[in-house]
């Protein structure tokens, strides 16, 4: 028996002594607080501010159009600021955390397709509650898309309707107001939530790193992949539904998805989305580069980045308006979807495994 115990001790001795020499810490030692700081300072905060500024511009363009009487010039101006606002939104949608999650911010700003029946009945009755979840698809950016581009078949028709008793203008006014007030709620809340967020570095389902990574993956899979590509392409239905593309009435779908993919790539590789500088310190990419012992193109970080680039190239080759793309050549659109889908596997399986992110689906025992 003594011999047996001795051999156990010896085996331990051998194992520890041959590894003792290089007592490098090999774990996911990335500094989570640096990562969280980067996410807040370089992504969340500037993206929210940018969106909030664009929204103010939209609001002031709208107010002057309303006060001075809308005409083709002010309509065009309004459409431009709407487009910039929608583009700016693409950087914000993925951060469904804190106040945003609590008040269903993303649902109120960007659920599409817009429920036009609901919009029209709200407008004609004038009696509606935007906080009612049934009204989420009757507000936000897709509704502005509809009102500025879709309520008539020509600009003249649209202008006529907009001028008619001011009903449409009033509705526009209240949904822009709703977006502004929700946005300022989110922005204001970050001022206090920030401290809690930045210090929440542990590994639980509710800690900031885990929530952010999960939100990021969820957004990529649902908000980006499924909503912008999969659903209109007919991946989840037996036939394509091209009218479900984002910004169906204005036809800005490609521009918006390029912005969205840019925001995704920026967050992944650690690049400031607006000034373009690759910041120092932790990003998902730099962490995976360290964690994965494979080098070069076999390293997960590089694999993900190059697959993102492949998807970006595919997106770039599409028509401006995805509705037309799906009608003319849905195969090309589906191939783009497939390229986007390949990234999901790497994010959801390989990255989660390497990061050792605890995804506590249910509070149950393991063994």
């Amino acid at each position: 028996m003594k011999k047996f115990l001795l051999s156990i001790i010896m085996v331990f001795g051998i194992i520890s002594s041959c590894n003792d020499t290089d007592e490098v810490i090999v774990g996911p030692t990335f500094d989570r607080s640096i990562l969280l700081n980067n996410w807040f300072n370089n992504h969340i905060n500037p993206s929210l501010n940018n969106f909030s500024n664009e929204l103010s511009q939209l609001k002031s363009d709208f107010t002057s159009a309303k006060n001075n009487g809308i005409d083709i010039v002010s309509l065009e101006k309004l459409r431009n600021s709407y487009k910039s606002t929608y583009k700016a939104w693409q950087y914000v949608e993925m951060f469904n955390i804190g106040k945003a999650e609590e008040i269903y911010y993303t649902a109120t700003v960007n659920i599409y397709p817009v429920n036009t029946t609901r919009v029209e009945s709200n407008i004609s009755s004038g009696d509606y509650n935007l906080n009612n979840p049934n009204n989420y698809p009757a507000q936000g950016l897709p509704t502005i898309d509809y009102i500025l581009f879709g309520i008539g078949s020509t600009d003249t028709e649209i202008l006529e309707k907009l001028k008619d008793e001011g009903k449409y203008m009033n509705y526009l006014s209240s949904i822009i107001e709703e977006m502004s007030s929700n946005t300022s709620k989110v922005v204001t809340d970050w001022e206090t939530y920030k401290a809690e967020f930045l210090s929440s570095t542990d590994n639980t389902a509710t800690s900031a790193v885990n929530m952010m990574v999960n939100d990021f993956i969820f957004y990529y899979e649902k908000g980006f992949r499924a909503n912008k590509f999969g659903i209109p392409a007919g991946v989840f239905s037996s036939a394509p539904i091209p009218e479900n593309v984002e910004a169906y009435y204005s036809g800005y779908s490609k521009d918006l998805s390029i912005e969205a993919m840019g925001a995704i790539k920026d967050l992944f590789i650690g690049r400031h989305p607006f000034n373009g500088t690759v910041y120092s310190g932790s990003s998902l990419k730099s962490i995976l580069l360290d964690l994965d012992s494979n080098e070069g193109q076999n390293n997960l970080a590089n694999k993900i980045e190059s697959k993102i680039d492949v998807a970006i190239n595919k997106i770039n080759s599409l028509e401006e308006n995805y509705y037309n793309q799906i009608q003319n050549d849905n195969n090309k659109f589906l191939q783009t979807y497939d390229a986007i889908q390949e990234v999901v596997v790497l994010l959801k399986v390989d990255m989660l495994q390497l990061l050792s992110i605890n995804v506590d689906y249910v509070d149950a025992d393991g063994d």
Partner: protein
Amino acid sequence: MINKYLEEYTPSYTLAFYRIGFGALMCYSIIRFWYKGWIEELYIKPEFHFSYYGFEWAKPIGEYTYLIFLLCFIASFFVMIGFKYRASIFLFFLSFTYIELMDKTTYLNHYYFISILSFLLIFLPANATFSIDNILNNKKFRNIPKWNVDALKLIITIVYLYAGIAKMNSDWLFEAMPLKIWLQSKYDLPLIGGNLLQMSWVHFAMSWGGMLYDISIPFLLIINRTRIIAFLLVIFFHVFTLILFPIGMFPHIMIFSSMVFFSSDFHKKIINKLKDLLMKIGIKKKSNKTKIVELYKTPRSKLSLTLVTSFFIIQALLPFRYQMYPGELFWHEQGYRFSWRVMLIEKIGYTNFKIKNPKTGTSFMVDSSEFLTPFQLKQMSFQPDFILEFAHYLGKKYSTKNNSVEVYADSFVALNGRPSKRFIDPDTNLYKEKESFRNKTWILPLEDEIKGI
């Protein structure tokens, strides 16, 4: 020699001690499970349940599922106090096993351990002393056959030994996988999380230590001279796993179970203490009316022995059934369960289903989260039998009377730190494949070998 062994006797205190502790732990387990809302969460809320092959009939029964748990609780309580022991432990075995059969999403080795342990206990006279049955029957037994206690020790030995053997594989010993992944993720643990648990040698030391612990602990417990050290090791090991992993009741059950190896004097002491306590609070009265029988004779002893022996033969062989399947066990998991393979794999999967209409050629992807809970979705995504069962559920759902759809899986899985790989043949119509014990040829190979037993 066997006959002689069968006639050896040992004091009845040991089994009585085990009965009380087991009953108490089970009572606590069920209360805990109930209190945490898991009955609702795991058995009542989900609209779909994953079944074991051949046990498709075992399903939760809506709100009445609570009654099964209540029944199981009452049975545990009766086992603890030794009231109508045989009937109670039989009822416990049935109700507990039924609960486990309702949905295999929740499969845990230690639930299986409790099921088979309670089955074994049906044959053991754990009510021979210090039980209500003694009062009811007006007799108690001083000694019981030694094999009764040895059977308990044997099942515990099998659990540890097989768990140890299963750890003798190249991933566990030479890659420190999956411990490396799990320990590193515990960086927020006070004192050791940020430094020790991040070091490579710690992962290896714990992998090797865990393997050596498992294969040696039953023997260290059997030998008189090492028993104390062994018991301290048991406590240390299980408390450590308790801190590190969400492992529930398992550490408590194993720490308690290892006490069965102690001498019967120890069990006698504990029971006498319990007696004193009961007398102090006035529940038990000193009575000398109970007739004391020196030796307990097993009724229908041949039948009991045959059943218990067959039980152990099955237990010894079952873990090796995986040999009948080609390919990598950890990957295809055919023959993986019920074999004391504890904490051996870290697997993440991502599996989606495509429904194809063969008449029109059109197809669409399903959002599985509409039908499964996140927990079920997670388990389904990397286990082939789950994938097949769910594919059939979807096939049935989307087929019409005269048009049977085809169901294809788009599935990727990563095992023990390896890059993700396609898991299921995307061209196999799973709705046509039947569940059976035959090899599932539509599982794509891992294309890597994990050496070991």
